[in-house]
């Protein structure tokens, strides 16, 4: 309770006491925007943590070995993520639904177990110590980025590109019949999503003195997915609200922090059953599928492809 009272009555004191939490909310909001982008285009791509690691490791390694600036390191991390996303996206995006999810999980885990935990340069299981970190100086850039991406995310849903994504999400065959290049549009969404994840990873790495390989596992991706589904994927506001609410929750209710993943799972189930469109969305008039799994499936774009 004290958490909310302080937030409302003494915002400055609250901010000073919870600077790291505010920054973490921002990073998670960026990650949620990243996964929202692919969900909006109808793809359940679960490589968010992997691309986050690409951004984090690239920027920190460049800072340690080449003494590059934060900006140069971040840009390099994003560029590398874009290249990797384009390379794996070309074959992988032929897959749909649950198969795409499995392939992208595979990529994330291969990156973590195959490269990060095995390569001396990345510190293997030890992680990297980033002496140049600035735990509080990053808050402003993080939240300016969230605001900028939220604005662009809102604008992009009204462009030709964004409306083509929505069409692809609903029905790929019909979209193709409207002259929409389905593969190219999916690839653009996937690459942009990877770049945003890498960007969030690079910023996150400069808020912490230590780059911890356990931070980039599959469970991190699932957390981010829960942010987006809780908030709703109909607009970019949903994932941001979801990320902030769920990141702050364990702080607001201390008892919850020990059971964070259990709590996330429970929240996901409640949302999918009672508010499948997410917190931030108008109620739809379409009939909801019955049952937990069918609803989850339709939320995540896993619905079985209709025969023609």
């Amino acid at each position, binding site marked *: 309770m004290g958490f909310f009272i302080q937030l409302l009555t003494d915002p400055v004191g609250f901010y000073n006491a919870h600077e790291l939490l505010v920054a973490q909310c921002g990073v998670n909001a960026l990650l949620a925007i990243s996964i929202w982008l692919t969900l909006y285009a109808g793809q359940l791509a679960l490589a968010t943590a992997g691309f986050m690691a690409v951004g984090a490791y690239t920027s920190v390694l460049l800072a340690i070995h080449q003494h590059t600036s934060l900006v140069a390191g971040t840009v390099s991390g994003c560029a590398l993520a874009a290249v990797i996303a384009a390379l794996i996206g070309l074959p992988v995006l032929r897959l749909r639904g649950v198969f795409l999810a499995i392939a992208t999980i595979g990529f994330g885990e291969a990156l973590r177990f195959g490269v990060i935990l095995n390569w001396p340069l990345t510190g293997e299981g030890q992680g990297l110590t980033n002496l140049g970190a600035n735990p509080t100086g990053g808050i402003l850039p993080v939240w300016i980025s969230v605001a900028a991406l939220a604005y662009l995310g809102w604008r992009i849903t009204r462009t030709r590109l964004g409306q083509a994504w929505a*069409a692809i999400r609903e*029905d790929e065959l019909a979209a193709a019949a409207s002259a929409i290049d*389905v593969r190219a549009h999916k690839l653009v969404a996937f690459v942009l999503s990877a770049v945003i994840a890498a960007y969030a990873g690079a910023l996150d790495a400069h808020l912490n003195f230590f780059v911890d390989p356990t931070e980039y596992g599959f469970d991190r991706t699932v957390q981010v997915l829960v942010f987006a589904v809780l908030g709703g994927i109909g607009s970019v506001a949903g994932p941001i609200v979801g990320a902030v609410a769920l990141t702050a929750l364990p702080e607001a209710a201390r008892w919850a922090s020990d059971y964070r993943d259990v709590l996330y799972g429970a929240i996901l189930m409640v949302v999918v059953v009672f508010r499948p469109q997410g917190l931030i969305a108008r109620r739809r008039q379409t*009939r909801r599928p019955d049952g937990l799994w069918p609803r989850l499936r339709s939320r995540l774009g896993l619905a079985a492809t209709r*025969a023609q």
Partner: protein
Amino acid sequence: MASPLLELSELRQYFGGVHALDGVSLSIETGQVFGLIGPNGAGKTTLVNVLTGHARGGSGLVRIAGTDVAGKPPHLVASAGVARTFQGVRLYHELSAIANIIAGMHRQRMHDIGRELFAPLGRVRRARTARHAQALGLLELVGLPDEVADRPAATLAYGQQRRVEIARALALQPRLLILDEPTAGMNPLEKREIGRLLSRLSEGGLTILLIEHDMPLVMSVCSRVAVLDFGRKIADGEPQAVARDQKVLDAYLGTETSCGSASEDDTTQAEGATSSTAAAITTGARPATSQTRPGRGLRASDLHVHYGAVHAVRSVSLAVDEGEIVTLIGANGAGKSTLLATLSGVLRPSSGAATFDGLDLTRAKPARIVAHGIAHVPEGRQILGRLTVRENLELGGYTRGGSRRLAADITRLEERFPILAERRSMPAMTLSGGEQQVLAIARALIARPRLLLLDEPSLGLAPILAESVFGLIAELHRSGLTILLVEQNAHRALSLAQRGYVVETGRIAFSGSAVELQANPEVERAYLGSDPRL
């Protein structure tokens, strides 16, 4: 003569040993309305899929205005100016009707994402308003009121969805429009409106390839017609000449029911040979009589059903006595399908009562209702595409158990509809649209229901097959099965049924015996249009 707008040469496509297309050539001139007809499974939709790039692995030449597009992916064929609709209607379900149409404008919109993202909001809003107005114009063109613009596509009635899909195709600003059975599931009045729409589009210079089973429509709007049968072209020419062609009559139109109009006395031809089949399937131990037993059967009173914000069914009361055959007719969107779905427990009414032989249909789960003897054949087939034909039939008997009699029933149905035997071990989705309809009906009969809810059984069927299905319905009725039939072919439905209800915007507008309804000029005017033969 200028080169044709569309030229197909030696088109071939094989699906697992089936020659879906076996060397078809045809050419369509600019401005033509070209009709493509043929029995179910003849390869009409496959031809369209090969032409638009939606089916891969075909061979042959596809030229659009002289440019070869064979083997190109669908978006490039669409970019060349070919728009299409789908036989099964593929709208973006969660998007509104208007958003569906706007998504179809992809080709004509500004390509510069940077300028779109950073343009001043005022300019963006003006561009949106302009697109919105254009989309509303298309909605009006296809004959839909503005009120449906903001409704999610999934909540629209089937016939309305078809029109939205046509509007979306027109949003591409095509040079060639391909329509795959645009009037399937529409009543005669709506069919006539579609006919007028096609004529108007054609007068505007649009070239149209029309796949259609409604022969009067084909005859009235097409300037040239080709006929497919078993993946081969068996005729191609002037509509009148094609309609007289003996091969076409044999393969497609049938001799008596030429042009698919509803003659009232043709039930007999399909029946004689196979009436024993239906009797054997439906009744089990019950004697085969068509005697009605009032007091038992389906009862519904004061039913209200809401679909989100839409009040789809308003205070409907109806009764179907045991052994009776009753039809529900009415325009698209009147609430007929919603009513059937409510009676089978798929939808829940907001108030009202419905019972069948003592079972409360408003509370019982769908599975319980099926076990109690109600089988529902939904509109649009809903077969299980990845399972084989045989597996689909076996699932129809899920509530019965007892494999030997089940197998015997399947054998009888396979005799009645040989296609079910021929394609026994193929995935059901490889069946053509009409064949899937047959499978859906057969699957419902396997459950040995006492009450059959049939939603548009003739939708998408070629005239001969449609007659065969109507013949089967008559047989099933005579063998004692109680039937509630929803059908767009109202004259045909009323000639089969004993009684009927006319549904108008969720209410029952008229009810009475089939003879009364057929004679009632109000019914004609409200629903059928003045000339039922169109």
